[in-house]
C-alpha cells in the first residue's frame, strides 16, 4: 500500500495536439475524453480565477483494484491555467476524476467497440493476478474476432498499440511505434482554442532502494580523499580537541530540513515527473501544509493519491522555448499534491439501469505548494 511508483518521461508526441486514448498517461497535449453521454461541462474547464480556458497538465490512467470492486476505467485529469497571475493561485488548478461506475458487460451499441474487449479482459484479470501484457493479449484477440468497421478498427489498433508499446521493453518500443504509425496516422484533436502544453508520454517505474540515493548524491565529485582525512586528523595535536559536539540536523542558508529531505528523494530519480502512491504518504517540501477539505459528495476525508514534481515543469519549459503562444513561466510551484476521495464515489446520477455505461466526473482537490 505504501509503495511509490514514479512516472518517468517517455517519448514526445509528434504533434502536441495528437489524440491518444484515455488509457494513456501523458503530460500536456489535449485531454482524451472517453466516450461520454454528456460532454464535459464547460464550467469545469474554465479557470475559477480569470475565467479563461484551462489546459491539460497531466492525464493519468489510474485504475483501482479494491476489495469490493475494481474500477478499471478511472482517469485523473489535472488542469491548470497559464495566465500570468493565475500561476500562483490555487484556485486556478483543477483535478477531475473520471470513472465508469458500472461494469457493463453486455453493452451492444457502443460506438467505440474497442471497449468491449477491455470489459472481457477485466473479468479475466479479476480471476487471477495477471500482468498487463497478458491482458493486452486478450484485447488483441478480441479485436480480431469481433466485426468492426474501419474507423473503429483504426481506433482499436491505436489503442492496442499504445498499450502494447508501453508494456513492451524499451528496445521494442520504437520498433513497434514505427510499425503502427505506417498505416494509421495519429489523429489530431480539432480544438484550436484551448491552450496546449507540449505533450509527452509517461512510463512508470518502481521506486527502488536507497542504494540509488547515495549514488545520486555524489554529483560533482569531491577533491577530498579518505587518506587526506586521516592525515589531517593526525595533524592536530596542540591541545585542540573538538569537544561537545552533538547530532545536528541538516541546515543550509536557504534550505531547511524538510526541503532537504524532499530534494534527497528527487535526487534519487532526477527525472521523475510525478509520484503515485495510492493511500500512501505525500512528500512535503515545507513543514506547514494547508488543511484539506472533505469530499463534497460523500463527506469522507480525502486521501493522497499522487503529486506532480518539478522536473515536469523543466521538461515543459524546455520544449516550449520555440513556437508557443502561451508560456508557463508564471508557474513556480514546487509540487502539486492531489488528494482523492477514498471511496471513489460518483455524483449520484448513476442509479438508472441503462444499457449505456454511465461515467461521472468528480472534482478532486489539489494543494499547490509554491517555491518562494
Amino acid at each position, binding site marked *: 500500500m505504501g509503495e511509490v511508483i514514479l512516472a518517468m518521461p517517455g517519448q514526445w508526441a509528434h504533434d502536441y495536439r495528437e489524440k491518444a486514448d484515455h488509457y494513456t498517461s501523458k503530460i500536456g497535449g489535449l485531454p482524451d475524453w472517453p466516450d461520454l453521454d454528456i460532454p464535459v461541462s464547460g464550467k469545469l474547464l474554465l479557470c475559477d480565477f480569470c475565467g479563461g480556458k484551462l489546459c491539460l497538465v497531466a492525464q493519468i490512467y489510474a485504475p483501482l483494484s479494491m476489495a469490493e470492486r475494481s474500477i478499471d476505467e478511472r482517469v485523473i485529469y489535472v488542469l491548470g491555467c497559464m495566465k500570468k497571475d493565475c500561476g500562483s493561485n490555487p484556485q486556478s488548478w483543477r483535478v477531475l476524476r473520471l470513472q465508469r461506475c458500472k461494469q457493463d458487460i453486455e453493452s451492444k451499441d457502443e460506438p467505440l467497440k474497442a471497449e468491449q474487449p477491455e470489459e472481457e479482459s477485466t473479468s479475466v484479470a479479476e480471476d487471477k493476478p495477471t500482468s498487463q*501484457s497478458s491482458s493486452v493479449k486478450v484485447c488483441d484477440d478480441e479485436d480480431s474476432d469481433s466485426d468492426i468497421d474501419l474507423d473503429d478498427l483504426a481506433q482499436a489498433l491505436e489503442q492496442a498499440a499504445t498499450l502494447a508499446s508501453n508494456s513492451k521493453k524499451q528496445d521494442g518500443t520504437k520498433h513497434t511505434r514505427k510499425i503502427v504509425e505506417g498505416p494509421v496516422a495519429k489523429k489530431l484533436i480539432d480544438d484550436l482554442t484551448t491552450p496546449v502544453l507540449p505533450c509527452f508520454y509517461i512510463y512508470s517505474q518502481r521506486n527502488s532502494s536507497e542504494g540509488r540515493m547515495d549514488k545520486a548524491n555524489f554529483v560533482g565529485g569531491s577533491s577530498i580523499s579518505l587518506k587526506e582525512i586521516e592525515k589531517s586528523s593526525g595533524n592536530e595535536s596542540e591541545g585542540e580537541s573538538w569537544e561537545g559536539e552533538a547530532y545536528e540536523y541538516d541546515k543550509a542558508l536557504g534550505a531547511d530540513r524538510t526541503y532537504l529531505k524532499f530534494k534527497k528523494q528527487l535526487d534519487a530519480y532526477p527525472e521523475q515527473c510525478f509520484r503515485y502512491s495510492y493511500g500512501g504518504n505525500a512528500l512535503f517540501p515545507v513543514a506547514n501544509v494547508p488543511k484539506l477539505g472533505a469530499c463534497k459528495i460523500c463527506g469522507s476525508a480525502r486521501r493522497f493519491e499522487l503529486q506532480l514534481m518539478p522536473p515536469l515543469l523543466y521538461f515543459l519549459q524546455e520544449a516550449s522555448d520555440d513556437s508557443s503562444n502561451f508560456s508557463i513561466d*508564471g508557474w513556480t510551484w514546487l509540487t502539486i499534491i492531489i488528494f482523492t476521495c477514498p471511496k471513489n464515489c460518483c455524483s449520484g446520477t448513476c442509479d438508472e439501469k441503462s444499457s449505456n455505461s454511465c461515467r461521472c466526473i468528480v472534482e478532486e482537490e489539489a494543494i499547490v505548494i509554491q517555491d518562494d
Partner: protein
Amino acid sequence: MAERGDRGGFGRGFGGRGGGEGGRGRGRGERRGGRRGNKSEEEKWVPVTKLGRLVKSNNITSIEQIYLHSLPVKEHQIIDTLLKGLKDEVMKITPVQKQTRAGQRTRFKAFVVVGDGDGHVGLGVKCAKEVATAIRGAIILAKLSVIPVRRGYWGNKIGLPHTVPCKVTGKCGSVTVRMVPAPRGAGIVAARVPKKVLQFAGIEDVFTSSRGSTKTLGNFVKATFDCLMKTYGFLTPDFWTETRFSNSPYQQYTDLLSKPTTKALLPPTEEPLQAEA
C-alpha cells in the same frame, strides 16, 4: 504485484516496467528545436526550483545577481554552475554518539568549508552513519550556504581590498569572534581553525580576537562564518547614496517570456467543447 486490496493501479495501468535501468539511457527522442541527446545520469541536472531553471538556461550568469536580491539557493548545482573555481576542504570529522538501549550508536559529523579564495565562502555540517556520506552531504550543504564576503582597506586605498572593511563580530553559542582590519602584510592573525575559513574567503590580513568557550570548535567555526556574513550587512558611508532598485530575475524573465507574440491569443468563444473520442 501480487497484493490485492486497496491500492491504486497506476503502475498496472500500462505496466511499462520493462524500462528499469535501461529506460533512463533511452533519452528523450527528437523534438523540434533540437535538444541535447543522451547524457549519463550523473552529469545531467534537472533543476527543481525556478532559480535553478533560470541558471540552467544561462539567464543568470553571475552569482552576484542572486545575492543582490537575496534569493534563497536551494540547489547546489546552481553554485557549481556559477562559481567554477570552488575548492573544498574537510575541517574535521568527529564521531557523535547517542545512547540507545542496545548500546551506543555512533555517527560521524563532518565540517566542510568551501571557497574560491576571492570573496565567496561556505560552511557545511552534516551528520551521517558513514564518513563518506557525511563528507558528501557536508560539501553539498556548504555549497548551499555560500555567502559573499566584503573586503576593504585598512588605510590607503591602493591596490585591491585585502582586509575586512570595518570591525565586525560574530557569535555562535558562547563563542564570539571579532575581526579587526589589519595593514597589508600582517597576515591572518587567528587560531588555526578560523584561519582556514578566512583563507578560503580571500581575506589576506586581519586581526581577530575571540571570547567564550572556543574549545567547542564547531561553534568557533560557525562564529567566524557568522562574522563574515555580517561584512556585507554593515552600513558604511559608501552605501549612503540612494539605491536604484532593479527587477528581480524572476520578474525580469517572466516579463520577457510572457510578452504577447504576434500570434494573438484567441478570444474565448462559446463553442462547445468536442468531447467525443
